[in-house]
């Protein structure tokens, strides 16, 4: 297998982006990524687009085709990857694999989602259907907040996790989002505001949930030969990628206090990279709901099972703590344009590893220059863990 590096990244402004359509949004990520890499569109041999809601919450059924057309990438090999909320990471995995295998030298993963063209309850419906429609939605109307709420209920019952612990995750992530120019939310919140917010799916409240966000992010990957040929200053190497999956029926899971697919994906990524959780200096984890960030701490081995709440209470996942997590605001406050999230995580970690994080207060101090992205699709239906090193 050949070595593969991230050589260019771009991230659109996340938020309510009804000022642009899906292709125009893609352009906002593709253009800066190409400029960052010092490339032009025809240099890109293959494009993998991560997008989950094509033809559902936005009107276009073949977003890869029209985004490539709009961005002048037509002619490159092209595919759309679907792994629910991990579609962006599935796109990264696809391009990584194509380069590592020797099939291509330069490729782009483009994460893309346009979620605000329909009303919120329709989005709740469409995402709720994306578990197992026949067995868990048709008669029972499960929603995604509800799937994670079930994990929160179980974690609270087993480990004494509290609603305040969950609120602390929201407060931390809003704090960093307020310092991130691309984030959807630009304001800090308090524990009291989080605790008194409207209940969505008990025990989760409004501030436990990520917003409905439009956004795009692009990541350009290249082989080691191309990195040398192009004289890339600060390549960020993909040292490990692990992928796994879980059942569609939540009723078939062994337990609800963690995501097994995340544990397995992390084990694979750590093994491939030859590192452990203690080596990670900055992480982006899939905090679509506050409980999901606590599960991630445990599933990734940042702490022992059941000790996730302790990490957040002690501030260990803030900058200056043991392992800074989601210092870009996370899905919770940067926003979660479903298919874009995986690529946006790589955007953030690449900036961190190059010591280019904006604003500067968000820059994590680094010694080993090793970072980890944890991107979950659904409620552990899919999981991708990617380890980067500068």
């Amino acid at each position, binding site marked *: 297998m050949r070595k593969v590096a991230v050589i260019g990244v771009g991230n659109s402004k996340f938020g*309510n982006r*009804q*000022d642009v359509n899906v292709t125009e949004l893609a352009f906002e990520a593709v253009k800066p990524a190409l400029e960052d890499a010092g490339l032009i569109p025809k240099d890109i041999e293959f494009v993998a687009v991560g997008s989950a809601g094509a033809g559902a919450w936005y*009107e276009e059924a073949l977003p890869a085709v029209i985004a490539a057309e709009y961005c002048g990438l037509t002619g490159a090999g092209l595919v759309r990857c679907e792994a629910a909320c991990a579609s962006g990471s599935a796109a990264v995995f696809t391009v990584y694999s194509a380069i590592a295998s020797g099939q291509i030298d330069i490729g782009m993963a483009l994460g893309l989602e346009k979620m*605000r*063209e*329909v*009303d*919120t*309850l*329709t989005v*709740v*419906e469409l995402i*709720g*259907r994306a578990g197992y429609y*026949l*067995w*868990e*939605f048709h*008669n*029972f*109307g*499960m*929603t995604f*907040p*509800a799937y994670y*709420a*079930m*994990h929160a*209920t*179980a974690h609270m*019952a*087993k480990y004494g996790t509290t609603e305040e612990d969950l609120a602390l995750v929201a407060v931390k992530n809003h704090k960093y989002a307020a310092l991130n120019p691309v984030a959807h939310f630009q304001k800090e919140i308090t524990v009291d505001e989080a605790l008194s917010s*409207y*209940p*969505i*799916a*008990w*025990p*989760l409240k409004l501030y436990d949930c990520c917003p409905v966000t439009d956004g795009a992010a692009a990541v350009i990957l290249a082989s080691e030969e191309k990195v040398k040929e192009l004289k890339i200053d600060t390549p960020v190497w993909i040292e490990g990628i692990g992928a796994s999956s879980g059942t569609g*029926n*939540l*009723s*078939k899971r062994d337990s*609800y206090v963690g995501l097994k697919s995340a544990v397995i994906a992390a084990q694979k990524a750590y093994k491939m990279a030859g590192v452990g959780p203690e080596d990670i200096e900055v992480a982006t984890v899939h905090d679509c709901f506050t409980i999901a960030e606590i599960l991630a701490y445990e599933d990734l081995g940042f702490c022992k099972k059941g000790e996730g709440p302790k990490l957040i209470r002690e501030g260990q996942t803030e900058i200056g703590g043991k392992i800074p997590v989601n210092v870009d605001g996370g899905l919770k406050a940067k926003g979660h344009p479903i298919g874009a999230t995986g690529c946006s995580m790589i955007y953030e970690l690449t900036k961190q590893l190059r010591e280019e994080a904006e604003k500067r207060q968000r820059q994590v101090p680094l010694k080993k220059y090793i970072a980890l992205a944890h991107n979950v699709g659904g409620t552990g239906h899919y999981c991708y863990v990617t380890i980067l090193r500068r």
Partner: protein
Amino acid sequence: MEVGFPTIKSRKLTIVNHIPISKTLKFWEGLKEGKIYTTKCKKCGTIFFPPAGDCSKCYSSDMEWIELSNEAEIETFTHILVRPATFQHYEPYTVAIGRLKEGVKVLAWLTGAKLSEIKVGMKVKLVAKVTPEGEPTYEFQPI
């Protein structure tokens, strides 16, 4: 849906899927008789819920129907206030996952209990029923 930006409306399309249930028909018919059936693989003995026509463990398609007990223990639950577009006509509802003594787990509504009374580990019964709209379903109820 956002105001403030100029947009054009897509053409309206209503989609209704016709989902095949030939392989699980006894389950759906059983609900109407107040019984909850599921499938067991005759070759390897695995019991499935939801019922399946094919065994994902040993790949046999030789399945038999068994009736499930109705005793369950709640493993986790939630109370859904923000409901999907097609569930707007319901009051907020509680959904639970219960483990049956056969070892399989079931996700269904839990009715007839206040949220404050529901606990992980609580014993409930699983009941087949037909909704007022005539749709077969099943739910947990307090014992």
